[in-house]
């Protein structure tokens, strides 16, 4: 510097500042663009995949619940309403499962995930084969009566529910775990980008501001002018951009994590709990159609305790008070139904299972389901709103730095133009 004359120093300062501004422009634009891609990955890929996997687990659990109900009452005219409802729900779940599997296969990112989906497709075909054989045997009965199953129907259903519990649900769980791990990774990567981004922007932005301030001081000393308006404007714009960009990255990250923590994670938990509760409710039917096998009593108790007290069934701390109260209502129905069955009053037990009066199982389970579904839907909608809100913060940020710092790069030569003219 000591050997340079004033025009050369002016050019050197100008060139250094423009290079620093260009570096900040490139870094900010690329970081913002990369963050947008990561957010897109979370919102358009990872979160929907996790939701699809969770939905698949639920739909499989309910599919078997409907089959259990159908096997129990198949062909019995007095339960035609329940049959229509069960068959209708079976068709809906069947389509839901097919759609989920198709979506899971088309969005799978690893060979391991694709293998899980293919296994599920094969197992589902086997499940449907056993389930429909059970129903076909019952429909062939001259006068089918609820709860009075031909042994073959019981045998075929046992095969079906074994496929569900030993193959389908574990496969769906693996898919769900993989998708949730991917979602967690996507959040971790976004968090890392946010930290690196803020550090880089502050570093490069601080350097640019420092260069602008030092240039201002050098100009003041050399040309005896207190302030260069163009450089001052450039300094303020740069400082503002650095603060704004850092804040956007930090706030956007906080909102994304809050959306996951407060909305999406609870939604996934409730979705899982709902699947467990449907499976537990199906244990009531399974107990009756199996001729009072104690394992279904124990299965129900284990699942119910988990729903009430928390654990591996999804809700780590148990259902909230309102939903739990309604679940306990169903549990009381379940216990009464099992008592009736144990007393040999199977027909009365089936009436209590399919009845829609308050205090009867079909109504009380629906009453519970309305509550837990409402909560789950609320969390899902809150996540969608929060996510869109967080994402909106990034709108325009891949070009905004170019525009703002482009102005800085123009202001600096404009600010020294007259000084340079003095040496021409």
């Amino acid at each position: 510097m000591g050997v340079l004359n004033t025009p050369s120093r002016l050019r050197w300062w100008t060139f250094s500042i423009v290079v620093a501004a260009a570096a900040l422009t490139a870094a900010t634009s690329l970081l913002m663009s990369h963050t947008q891609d990561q957010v897109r990955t979370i919102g358009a890929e990872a979160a929907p995949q996790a939701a699809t996997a969770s939905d698949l687990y639920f739909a499989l659990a309910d599919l078997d619940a409907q089959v259990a109900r159908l096997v129990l009452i198949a062909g019995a005219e007095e339960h035609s309403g329940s049959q229509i409802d069960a068959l209708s729900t079976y068709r809906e779940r069947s389509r839901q499962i097919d759609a989920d599997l198709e979506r899971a296969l088309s969005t799978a990112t690893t060979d391991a995930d694709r293998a899980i989906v293919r296994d599920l497709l094969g197992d589902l075909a086997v499940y449907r084969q056993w389930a429909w054989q059970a129903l076909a045997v019952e429909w062939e009965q001259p006068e089918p009566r609820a709860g009075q199953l031909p042994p073959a129907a019981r045998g075929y259903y046992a095969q079906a529910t074994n496929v569900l519990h030993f193959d389908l649900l574990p496969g769906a769980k693996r898919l769900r775990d993989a998708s949730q791990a991917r979602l967690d990774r996507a959040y971790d990567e976004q968090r890392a980008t946010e930290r690196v981004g803020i550090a880089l922007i502050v570093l490069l932005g601080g350097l640019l501001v420092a260069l602008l301030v030092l240039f201002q001081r050098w100009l003041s000393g050399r040309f005896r002018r207190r302030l260069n308006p163009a450089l001052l404007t450039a300094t303020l714009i740069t400082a503002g951009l650095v603060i704004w960009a850092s804040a956007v990255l930090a706030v956007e990250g906080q909102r994304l994590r809050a959306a996951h923590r407060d909305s999406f994670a609870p939604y996934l938990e409730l979705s899982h709990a709902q699947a467990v509760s449907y499976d537990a409710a199906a244990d009531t039917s399974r107990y009756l159609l199996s001729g009072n096998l104690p394992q279904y009593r124990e299965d129900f108790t284990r699942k119910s305790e988990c729903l009430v007290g928390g654990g591996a069934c999804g809700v780590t701390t148990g259902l909230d008070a309102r939903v739990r109260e309604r679940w306990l209502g169903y549990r009381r129905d379940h216990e009464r139904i099992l008592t009736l069955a144990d007393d040999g009053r199977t027909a009365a037990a089936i009436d209590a299972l399919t009845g829609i009066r308050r205090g009867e199982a079909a109504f009380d389970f629906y009453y519970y389901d309305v509550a837990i579904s409402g909560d789950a839907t609320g969390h899902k909608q809150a996540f969608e709103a929060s996510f869109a809100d967080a994402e909106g913060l990034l709108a325009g940020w891949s070009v905004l730095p170019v525009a703002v710092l482009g102005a800085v790069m123009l202001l600096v030569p404009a600010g020294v133009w007259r000084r340079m003219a003095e040496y021409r």
Partner: protein
Amino acid sequence: MRGGKAMANRSVALAAAVVAALAGCGAGPAAPAPVADSIRCAAGTLTGQGSSAQANAVNIWIRNYQAACPEAAIEYASVGSGAGLRAFISGAGDFAGTDAALPAADQPGADARCGGGPAIHLPMVVGPIVLAYNVAGVSGLRLSPATIARIFTGAASTWDDAAIAADNPGVVLPPTRISTVHRSDSSGTTNSFTSFLAATAGGAWTSGSGSTWRAKGGQARQGNGGVAAAVRRTEGAIGYLEWSYAQVNNLNTAVVRNGDGEFVEVGNQAAGTAVGTATVTGAGGDLRLDVDYTTAEPGAYPLVLVTYEVVCARGTRAGALDLLKGFLAYTSSEAGQRAVARLGYAPLPERIRARVAGTVDTLG
């Protein structure tokens, strides 16, 4: 600035895509049908009895209403239309479900039960009736009323019968024997089916109409489920049954010719179009309908069953009035009608639904 605007637009589009992706991915268990918005809650107990044809719909409504209104307790006994009306006239229950309007001879008794205020009919449930068939190699079967009559009276014995072939030009029909399936029990479905044929099949149908019909041949089965099961497992079978049973059993259903000469496939819109041409024959709030099975309305599927709730226009017991009005306001609402569509019931046409809802508000 243009670039910034474009980015903003892209961002909005992305946000929309994210929301759509989540919403459309079947994200989470299907929530039970939302019910709370259109329900006006009331406390108390309410009982009704009658038509089994509408029992599935009424039970769904009761479940939804009670889930939204913890202080309400509603019961409906599926005892058949005749028994339901008799019980209502004798003072039991707060409403009766029926597949057919009160006979003129019973109207005075029903009015008296209401303390002089007339007993009125509120059409509430529309159930399309279909002809489900099981014929190898045949899909999209078209049948005119006269051909349906030929089939069910035994005049047509094989599927390649000339009348069936005339309805299905260009279709190769097999010489399989026709096996008809009808109801062994009394039912509104049979009443609508025979009324339809009596009105539209001309000389091909001489059996009149009624809720029981003893066919000379074919299989007699109890309930819609029994008919569906027989059709499902019998090659060459055809039976009449409620649409919902054909849907859930994945049975092919015939396309039926209406009074306009148009062959129409069953559907909510098509059934609603047919009911929309019905004439309201009651006076004041009495909305009994005269369904025109010969309707020439384009797109109308003419084989429908309309069932009613019979209630007191004035004279419902004080303890049940608010609940009766709240419950029927829900059943006659758009949400209530939608709630039972998945069971194979067609929503009431808006013109009639609005009149029913208006009448419910005036009950006293």
